[in-house]
């Protein structure tokens, strides 16, 4: 029960699963441990009203947050996953895909849309962590490449909001190659002097970080988002040390020169619109 004070000892915080809002009337903030009204958190763009902790934002809410009047057209929704390797671990990949489709109402971990941001036509693609940990397989790569090509054709900026555990193992080497595919498409966009802005949200790791997440002309990040190549547990196993507090968080990346701007969700749209204005060709 939500009001129960003494609980079993907590397992170490798992950044992959910890910050989703549980179903129900109340929820507990990961950061300040306050019990909060779920409705109140939702109304606050899923930011803790007590401490400012950023819960994960579903992809469609992100689109509403960024586009003017919450209006946009979904693009490339017809790109659907297949099972090129006939992959099976403890479960068949096909079954896993179906489960997530039922759970999220989406067929893969990305949502792309066009609309206006402060009146400026923009292509926005948002990864959805709720779908298989936001993992990048062929669909994510294809939608991102098409988004970049669309921005190129429309001569408008591209914005990608990342949230991903990395490449999707179930599509094997094809997932890895999406890193090259998307990066090449961004290269073409850049060659045409069209802005690409990356917005990094919790968590952004693995092959997503090692490709388009780190290629922004401007790189924005939400506060305290986990951003890295290797996951913290892998690093701890490698170096046999506990990682320092705040390691691989947005503020850490800002300090080390890999992020331009850490902005709260409430300031995100204004900051993005400003950056787009500064980088876009004069009207």
């Amino acid at each position: 029960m939500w009001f129960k004070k003494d609980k079993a000892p907590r397992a170490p915080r798992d950044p992959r699963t910890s910050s989703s809002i549980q179903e129900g009337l109340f929820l507990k903030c990961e950061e300040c441990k306050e019990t909060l009204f779920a409705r109140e958190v939702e109304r606050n763009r899923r930011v803790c009203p007590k401490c400012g902790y950023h819960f994960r934002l579903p992809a469609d809410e992100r689109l509403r947050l960024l586009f003017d009047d919450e209006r946009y057209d979904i693009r490339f929704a017809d790109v659907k996953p297949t099972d090129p390797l006939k992959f099976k671990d403890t479960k068949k990949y096909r079954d896993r895909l179906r489960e997530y489709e039922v759970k999220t109402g989406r067929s893969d971990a990305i949502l792309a849309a066009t609309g206006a941001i402060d009146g400026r036509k923009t292509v926005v693609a948002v990864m959805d962590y709720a779908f298989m940990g936001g993992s990048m397989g062929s669909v994510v790569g294809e939608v991102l490449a098409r988004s970049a090509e669309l921005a190129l054709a429309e001569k408008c900026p591209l914005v990608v909001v990342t949230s991903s555990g990395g490449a999707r193992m179930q599509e094997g080497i094809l997932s890895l190659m999406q890193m090259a595919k998307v990066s090449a498409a961004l290269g073409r966009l850049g060659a045409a002097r069209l802005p690409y802005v990356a917005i990094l949200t919790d968590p952004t790791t693995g092959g997503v970080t090692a490709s388009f997440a780190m290629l922004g002309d401007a790189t924005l990040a939400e506060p305290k988002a986990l951003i890295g190549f290797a996951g913290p547990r892998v690093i701890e196993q490698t170096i046999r040390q506990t990682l320092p507090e705040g390691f691989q968080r947005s503020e850490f990346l800002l300090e080390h020169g890999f992020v331009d701007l850490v902005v709260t969700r409430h300031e995100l749209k204004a900051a993005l619109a400003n950056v787009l204005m500064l980088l876009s060709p004069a009207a």
Partner: protein
Amino acid sequence: MASDANFEEPLRRIRERISELEGYPESPQRAREIGKQREKLDKLAEEIYRKLSPWQKTLVARHPSRPFCLDYVRLLTTDFVEWHGDRAFGDDPAIVAGFAVFGKRVVAIVGHQKGRDTKEKIRRNFGMPRPEGYRKALRIMKLAEKFQRPVLSFIDTQGAYPGLDSEERGVAEAIARNLLVMSQLRVPIIATVIGEGGSGGALGIGVADTVLMLEHSVYSVISPEGCAAILWKDQARAQEAAEAMRVTAADCKALGVADEVVAEPPGGAHADPVATIDNVGRALRVHLDRLAPMPVDALLEGRYNKFRRMGAFA
């Protein structure tokens, strides 16, 4: 399945028998027996290596006696000069880079480099690059573009180094930058997977016009052990993971990721490094001759489309 790793045992026994025979005084019988054993060895090696499982191929790809990048450089090129450092932080011995003469051309070389003995392994960080390695490779590739030299890349790493310093200095950014710049580099690039193609750390020098893979090399999105640990919650299920992920050269060719599989001699590259390196050299020459005369725009268009097509969706 523990015997999976022991597939070389019968070969080792015959090799031992041959060196034993070679210790005997010369005689027609000795010569005959050695000849017979050699024939048996070749036949058995051919048979065993033809049927290697994906996991066994992973083990072969990691074999400590397999030729490494610098072995290819030594045998295939002359006048090699190694360049050092990324001009920002340091030099990473896990990646070697430089220029050399290959046939009638000067080429740029970038490649992962593992170590042979313990000291060398540690110095080269087991072939796991830090950001400086990728940035050094990038520097040399930009030089190659400036001086119009094709790039030969040799891939052989279990992955980029997952360490604290590596993260701090932005290994993800270093790999990402290479992917983008390589996709636009205005000279031919040929990448050859000579051993382990371990995820982003491999791809970080792997965007190319032509991707070759040695017959028993592997290329994967995550190591079989890593995949098993996550999906099966048991690292020991690596054999199944290797199978499921389809990590072999033949699989990568079928999936459109590798353009050509370069044959290894019976018993694998480590059984006959010189023959292996020769095979790679021949393939590199053929592809360089094909790519070098291409107009740059056609080259870049081809490279873009090659990666653009990768993936499977409905």
